[in-house]
């Protein structure tokens, strides 16, 4: 089991191989269907995004509301394939990687290689476990999208598996 502290350097990314189990600590940003649509609109219109994309890790997730006294509600990954059409452009703009579940398309695999980036699979359905790994959660963009807004999450020992690496390695193949 590897432990990773974010942000990842390119040297760290080069040491990750499909199939590696990892525990991630640091800051990640949630974004799913509606947030991606809006991020793409911002980029197309040349508007400044309300957060830094460079070296960020996007988590394809939409959390449950937090109970009083908890940092986050349940927050497992959603199916990454729905973000297939968005991911290559974001990687080319400096996105460091993504966390989601399930295989992503060959265009994403190529963009990971081109940008020395990585795609992690979180364990789909482990919402309560991931909610408990979140120590702080703040909505930093698009609050009108409710659970689909962008949340800045501070996570500790967030379990994941390297699904697609920067060499074309793919756990699903």
């Amino acid at each position: 089991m590897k432990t990773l502290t974010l942000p990842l350097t390119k040297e760290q990314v080069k040491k990750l191989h499909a199939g590696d189990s990892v525990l991630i600590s640091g800051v990640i940003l949630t974004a799913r269907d509606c947030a991606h649509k809006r991020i793409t609109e911002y980029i197309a219109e040349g508007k400044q995004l309300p957060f830094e994309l460079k070296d960020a890790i996007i988590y394809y997730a939409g959390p449950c509301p937090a109970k009083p006294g908890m940092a986050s509600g349940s927050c497992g990954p959603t199916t990454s394939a729905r973000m297939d059409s968005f991911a290559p452009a974001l990687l080319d703009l400096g996105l460091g990687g993504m966390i989601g579940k399930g295989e992503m398309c060959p265009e994403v695999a190529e963009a990971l290689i081109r940008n020395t980036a990585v795609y992690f699979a979180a364990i789909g359905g482990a919402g309560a476990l991931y909610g408990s790994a979140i120590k702080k959660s703040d909505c930093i963009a698009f609050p009108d999208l409710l659970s689909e807004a962008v949340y800045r999450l501070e996570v500790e020992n967030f379990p994941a598996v390297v699904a697609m690496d920067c060499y074309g390695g793919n756990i699903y193949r």
Partner: protein
Amino acid sequence: MRLLNTDEIESAVYRAALHAGVNLTDSCRAAMSAAYEGEDESAAKFALGKLIENSDVACGNAMPVCQDTGMAVVMLDIGDEVFLTGKPLREAVNSGVRRAYADGYFRKSVCDPITRKNTADNTPAALHTEIVSGDKVRLTFMPKGFGSENMSALYMLKPAQGVEGIIDAIVQTVKKAGSRPCPPVYVGVGIGGTFDGCAYLAKRALTRDIGTHSDREDIAEIEREALRRINELGIGCQGFHGKTTALGVSCEWAPTHIAGLPVAVNIQCHCVRVVKEVI
């Protein structure tokens, strides 16, 4: 004739929704434990172990077992001797869902199909009513996540394709879904009926306990053979390979037209959440 105030149905929906969002069914827990014990593939075993741990964390903290607390599928089998009083039935069901999703800190996942604007309270429920005999109301509550719902399919087979065609349709649907629906999956299958009725049969099949079989031997054999072939695909937990791609296959059937053989395959992820109550 039995008078039944719809407030009682609202309360039952509320209780069922709160319980279902947090707890897997016993048969699902047992099937997941068996899959974990039997798994040799390391990443798949790691994931299965974490999923079992996850359901313990969910119960312990009364947190949703999965953040996709689903669309609220509500099935009401209403006895024909029941006379409903009070607020309209649909309003009672939606009110139970609305209160449970707020009080349980569940995610609100229902939106307009075109504008994508969230209704913000997880209503409306997907409500199915059937009239049955008797003076009771049987409630089945199932929150349905869409990572798996998206991988479902309906086929209008030719009658000549028969049992082999049915099994192929089931297995190919799971194969095509691959790692995306959060395997290991539970597969609900509708066989026969009409286009719309067949899809409902598949949904209804998912409300059966995992491991139960149709009381028709020929259909029970389809369930067993489809499961065997699915688990030969080697997709495994989360797509990490291994022995368990599906925890079970359940088929429900209805008579159909001489010209057709509808088959609906409704995919459920490993978070099987079903609560039943007789009112």
